[in-house]
Every structure is written in structure tokens, then in C-alpha cells.
């Protein structure tokens, strides 16, 4: 497993969030999550313009093994989705924290980010999962 980048924030349900400029955040699933799921063959993306609430289903990730929900770490409006996942969903397997981002949203309340895990806390959580 690759390291969980310090600059990202995490959820216990294995999503990550990267703060961009102007109250925008980018969201994906962690490398640990993709490794648990195995080869990803389809990602059901949220609709651009839809409003997500923290902790609710935002994305369905289908691997050869199973379908898994990914939840929105924070609340906000989806302003962009990673269209390249339509043709090459496996980029999540290859680069979960980078090219494998899933959607970007305009934060409804940036203070929600404070409630998310930092890299160290998430790494600990992921390690517990492995036990």
C-alpha cells in the first residue's frame, strides 16, 4: 500500500478529500480502498449540479468482486466529475490519490473538513481493518 498523503483528509469509510482553491474540494477513494475492492470495472458518477450531503452515498464503485458505495465526506454541490473514469475506471487502481479522483464539489460549509481524519489517523484506521 502506498502512503496516505499528508495534505489530504480522510473518512473512516475510505474516501479522501483534497482542498483546492476557492472553496472547492476534490474527492476520491483511498489506495487502501481500491486494494480491498480489486480491479475496478465501473464507476457510477454523481451528476454535475447535484447536491451531496456529508455521509450520504455519492458514488458506486463496481469492481470484479463487488459493488461498493462511496460516501461524500462533506456537503456541497458537484461541479465536475472525472469523465475519464467512464472509459478507464482502472486508473483508480493505478493512482487512487491522483488521476483517480472522482468528483469535485463546491463546499457548503468548509468547517466540515475539520471533522475529517488526518493522514496519521486514517493510516491507523486502515491498519486496524487489516487485522
Amino acid at each position: 500500500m502506498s502512503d496516505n498523503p499528508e495534505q489530504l483528509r480522510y473518512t473512516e469509510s475510505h474516501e479522501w478529500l483534497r482542498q483546492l482553491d476557492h472553496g472547492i474540494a476534490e474527492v476520491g477513494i483511498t489506495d487502501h480502498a481500491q486494494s480491498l475492492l480489486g480491479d475496478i470495472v465501473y464507476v457510477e458518477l454523481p451528476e454535475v449540479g447535484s447536491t451531496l450531503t456529508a455521509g450520504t452515498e455519492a458514488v458506486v464503485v463496481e469492481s470484479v468482486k463487488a459493488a461498493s458505495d462511496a460516501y461524500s465526506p462533506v456537503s456541497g454541490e458537484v461541479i465536475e466529475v472525472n469523465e475519464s473514469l467512464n472509459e478507464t475506471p482502472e486508473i483508480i487502481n493505478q493512482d487512487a490519490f491522483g488521476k483517480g479522483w472522482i468528483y469535485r464539489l463546491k463546499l457548503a460549509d468548509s468547517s466540515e473538513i475539520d471533522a475529517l481524519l488526518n493522514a496519521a489517523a486514517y493510516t491507523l484506521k486502515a491498519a486496524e481493518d487489516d487485522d
Partner: protein
Amino acid sequence: MVQTAVGEIQSTERQRRQLPTIAQAKGPQQLPTLESAALQPAKGQSSQAPEQRGGDSQATGQDSARYDLRNIPMSNKTPLYPAHLAAGGKVVDFAGWQLPVHYGSQLEEHHQVRNDAGMFDVSHMCRLHLSGQDSGDFLRHLVANNIDKLTEPGKALYTPMLLPQGGVIDDLIIYRLDNSNYRVVVNAATREKDLAWMFKQAIAFDDVNLALLDDTAMIAVQGPQAREKTLQVLSDTDAVVAAGLDPFFGAVTGDLFIGRTGYTGEDGFEIVTPATGGIAMWDKLLAAGVKPCGLGARDTLRLEAGMCLYGHDLDETSTPLESGIAWTIGWQPQDRDFIGRSALAQQKSTGIPRRLVGLLLEGKGVLRDGQTVQTTAGDGLITSGGFSPTLNRSIALARVPWDCRPGSDCSVLIRKRPQPARVVKFPFVRNGKAV
């Protein structure tokens, strides 16, 4: 060659363990006790429950009270377990066995088998040696397909084993070595109920011996290059025997049993070795360029090949006529009284309510077991669904109303939303090519 082989198998069996004999009692019938290591003759205590191991099998019919499935010890290891760890296998529990689901990428392993050669540890499957003067008559009664189709020594038969009501207890492969020696392979998850059922039926026959071959490992080598790469690692004698096998034949050679069979839709071998020789065989195949493949790829390969998986596409509530395996019913000769025959004949005359079909999902997404299929003839259910790496789209097997025929359109409810799919015949893939 095969005659020699049969002589060898008998001596091998004797060395391996005492062959138990099923009691010939014709009076008050008694269920013999099963032990995990060997089958014992009946000892006169009728209601003793056999030790349980294996998976989620349901006890069969009227004997269900005898078996307590709550005390299944989990996590048996096959003789190849250390090799899986060495190869980086992600080990999971499967039907009570610790087996690798993949060694990194299920997709790569799938393509490896379609394009080159891969190997699977299938030691969890239950192997039996059946012998005795009455073993042929026993099988003619026990299973729906007719072993008399096996006119040549070594030929294998795929057959369901049925309840009197026509539901499928399990699907198995029977290799006929000669008229009184057969090799039988049954599923791991149904092992105990299969053995109990076979024992119960065997009581009516005088000379039938069933021996478990638990001290063995079994490796399935599959793919277009599987035969060539396997032949490289076998001894000269064994290679001659293996090279001479036609598809769906098997033979004993030395302390090996080699079958030209599999569960992927590709050519290849299934090799049974003594347990102690399992890792050596695995390592030799590895060195010959055969890549380890996990249960995940095994499942997508068999689904593409349109092969049923017991507990999903086959179960005790559906007959072979409703499961896409009507071809396995040996109707001829008409006086062969196999278990389930009258129920099947009845269903055939009154109308078969359901059929097993293939589905191709038109759009993106993945079909999964248990999803509802909506057709103009009524609703059905996906029994095995998944992603087909060869076709790069989702496929499934589904049990639907009989009047829903291949060529028609349907919808599958994925997360409550209907998605268009096409009803097709299966297999989807054979010998590496889309069908």
C-alpha cells in the same frame, strides 16, 4: 496404458489407506458413520451424525435432522497453502477452505488463462475413488446422466445428482477407469451432504466401496498453452500418458491422476498428486511459466464459459431442465431408474416453468447475483452475475420464466433502476473467443 493405470490405482489406494466397505445390510438400513479422513463401515449405531466440515451445504431430504451445520470447523488449509503465501495470494475463506481469491489482479489472471496458461489450487474439491462389482449399477441409479455413455476407459461424464423431487444435490464429474473403478469429483461446499447421500444410496448395493482421496492435492492448469507447459514438467512416462488424453478423458499414471478437464472453457489438465508432492508440482509449473490464478478469475472464467456454479445456478429447488443442463439427463435407456427420473418426466410433460439463460448488459455497470430480471413473460433472478474481462462488459446467468427466450430484451434492476439487457444463449466465450 489405461489397463496398466487401473492396476496401479488399486495398489496406490491400498497403500494410501484401508479401503472401507459399505455395509451390505439389507435389513434395517443404517447410515454409516463418516469420518473426515476415511469412510468407515456401518457399526450398528444408526443415528450417529457424521463429523461436519466444508461450507454452506444444506443437509439433504429426510436426513436433515442428523446433521448439525452449526459446528462447521472453518479454515482448512490445502497442501498448497504455503505456495499461495509465497506467491502473494490474498487468502480468503471459501467453503471452509483458506484459498487465494487473487495474487494481485484478478483481471490479469483471467487474461492469463484466456491467452496463455494459469493454474488454480482446486484441492478443496472432494475426490473419491469408487470401486466394487456394483459400482456401475450404483452410479446408474445415483446420477441423472448415464455412465454407459462412457464407452472408453478414462472418459469423463458431467452429471447432476438429484433428489427424488428432481432438485440438484450437486453436480459432479465421474471418470470411468474400468467397469468397477471410477473417480468422482464433487464440490467442496456440498461435500458432507453429498457423502451422506451417496452412502445412503449405496446401502442398497452389495459391493460398492467409496474412498476419500483427502491426502491429495489437485491443480487445474488451464489455457491455450496449458498442455504444452504441463507436459514439459511431467516425467517422460507421465507426459506420454497426459499427451495421449483426448478432451474430457483422464488416467492414472504413477502416483498422479491427470484429467483433460477444467472449469474455464480452455484446454488444459487437472492434476491430482499425493499431498506431499503438491508443492513440488506447483513449483515446477511455476518455473515453466504457468501463473498462479485465484478463485476470482476462476469464477469469471467459468461464467464466461457458461458453466454452472452449484449454490448459485444449481440448487435443490431447481431441476436440470430449469438450469440449462437438460443435456445431462440420460433419458435412454427408458428402463434406467435413476433418482429423480419420474419427477423430471413429470415436469417435462406438465411444462417446465423456468429456464436458465444468459444475459448481456447493454450499458455500463455490473450484473450481480440476486438482481431481479424483468421480462415480458414475468420476473426472474440473476443466479451468477459479473464482469466479463474477455467481452469487456457485464454478463450473467439468470433463471427466468420459460417463455422468456434467447433473442429477447429484458431489464435488470440495478440499485432499483431498470437497465436494459439482452437475453442470450450461453456460453459467452469458448477457447478464448466470444461466442
